[in-house]
């Protein structure tokens, strides 16, 4: 076990006394905080909350797209800068339609400084890893919404960053597709062993994916519940996992907290 001091410096994500406000003058809205949070390496943190609780804001702060109004955000010990150290998956796939499917992944590899010959080899490899076969030459709009989001995940994995940030990536997908992507993401995150921070409003998704679940209150978002999910990460089929009695109990606990937190 690491000491509390070590967690502060070694954690993949370190959030300390962070407050974030939007607007100026009389229109100031406190979206988030004060909130403190450490995400140890290799863990899968899911942040749950009703819409408008500031969970996406928290993710944008960790990504470095925005700077906190007060407090400290660190990833791997440094102030986060977009494009360094974290792969990001958004709610919409945000693929570039002027590039082929493979071209989108290739671009991510190029930005990560991967040499040309290696890129050609790694593009199909990355697509396979997210469960896509023979799609590299296709146009992005020829893929289904679920497939497009898989490409977005492959693109986020391309940089081999130690951190993966996901902002409600499956919210726009139909239930069946969502379930399959959740299962694949769980598998991929186990295989690659990277730290993940996943934002969602779905309790089911949180308990299934997370090794730890944090529930946020409604605006301004503060931690209402911080719960470890002691379910086995490997060895069980998704259906077996969902059938465990502990699974149902954890889901009930989180669900309760979300309802209370929303007020």
């Amino acid at each position, binding site marked *: 076990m690491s000491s509390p001091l070590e967690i502060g410096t070694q954690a993949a994500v370190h959030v300390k006394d962070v407050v974030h406000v939007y607007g100026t003058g009389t229109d100031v809205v406190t979206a988030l905080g004060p909130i403190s949070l450490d995400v140890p390496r290799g863990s899968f943190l899911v942040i749950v909350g009703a819409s408008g609780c500031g969970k996406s804001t928290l993710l944008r702060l960790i990504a470095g797209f925005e700077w906190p109004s007060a407090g400290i955000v660190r990833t791997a010990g440094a102030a986060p800068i977009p494009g360094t150290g974290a792969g990001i998956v*958004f709610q919409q796939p945000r693929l570039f*339609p002027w590039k082929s499917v493979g071209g989108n992944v290739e*671009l991510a590899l190029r*930005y990560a400084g991967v040499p040309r010959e290696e890129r050609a080899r790694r593009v199909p490899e990355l697509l396979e890893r997210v469960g896509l076969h023979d799609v590299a030459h296709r146009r992005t709009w020829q893929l289904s919404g679920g497939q497009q989001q898989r490409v977005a995940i492959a*693109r*986020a994995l391309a*940089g081999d960053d130690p951190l993966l940030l996901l902002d409600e990536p499956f919210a726009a997908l139909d239930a069946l597709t969502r379930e399959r992507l959740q299962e694949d993401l769980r598998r991929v995150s186990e295989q690659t062993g990277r730290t993940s921070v996943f934002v969602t409003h779905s309790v089911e998704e949180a308990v299934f994916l997370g090794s730890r679940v944090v529930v946020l209150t409604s605006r301004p978002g503060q931690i209402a519940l911080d719960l470890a999910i002691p379910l086995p990460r490997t060895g069980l089929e998704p259906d077996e996992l969902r059938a465990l009695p502990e699974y149902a109990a954890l889901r009930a606990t989180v669900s309760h907290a979300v309802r209370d937190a929303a007020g």
Partner: protein
Amino acid sequence: MRVLAGAALLGLWQLAAAAAANASFIPSPGAVWEQFLRLSTTHDGIRGYSGSLLVEHLGISLRRILIGSAIGVAGGLVVGVVLGTVPWIRVVAEPVVTFVRALPPLAYFSLLIIWFGIDETPKLWLLAIAALPPVAVATAAAVHGAPSHLVEAARALGASRRDVIRDVVLPNALPEIFTGVRLAVGIAYSSVVAAETVNGVPGIGGMVRDAQRYLQTDVVVLGLLAIGLSGLLIDALLRVTEKRLIPWRGRS
């Protein structure tokens, strides 16, 4: 359907010509066809019209359009990217572009003749100036309106500022730029007749103007048909190019 409509139009034209009974007012389709044959060959030792065949007149005009609009499009791209990315230049230069855009090409042609004489130079300048504003305006708008969610996605992948412009802003602007190019070529096309009002022979606009002076109405009509049909052809070519170059147009 289109063939039928074309035939009906031809029939109406024939009827109108017969009703007018004055070939210098409305020439019959047959007379225009005869002119077409005469202007495409050497007849009684006279080569086409004013020493050039019809295709040569058309070819020279097309060449002017090509060079003029190429310069205008290139200039428009540069001006558009600058306008779209540097705010203070946009504030200063946008009214100028809008002003030039509102001027009819004939209005500044006189000035160009004073500056550059009556040969090729002022004609190419005219077409270039006419073609520049639509491309500049379209490019500026498209570059300025780069979708922030895609720019953010590129930054998240580690794109530099230059990467973002090359891989997101410009490709995203391409469909709108192409619309501007088609508009520009259309304007250059309609301006070439104006450009050829002075020392325009050989040239299809010059030919029409000379024919008007001598009341050769059939040559005038023939010239109009040549301009219109070649214009349609060029726009069709641009459309095909667009389809191949920008397959993602209208998708996302």
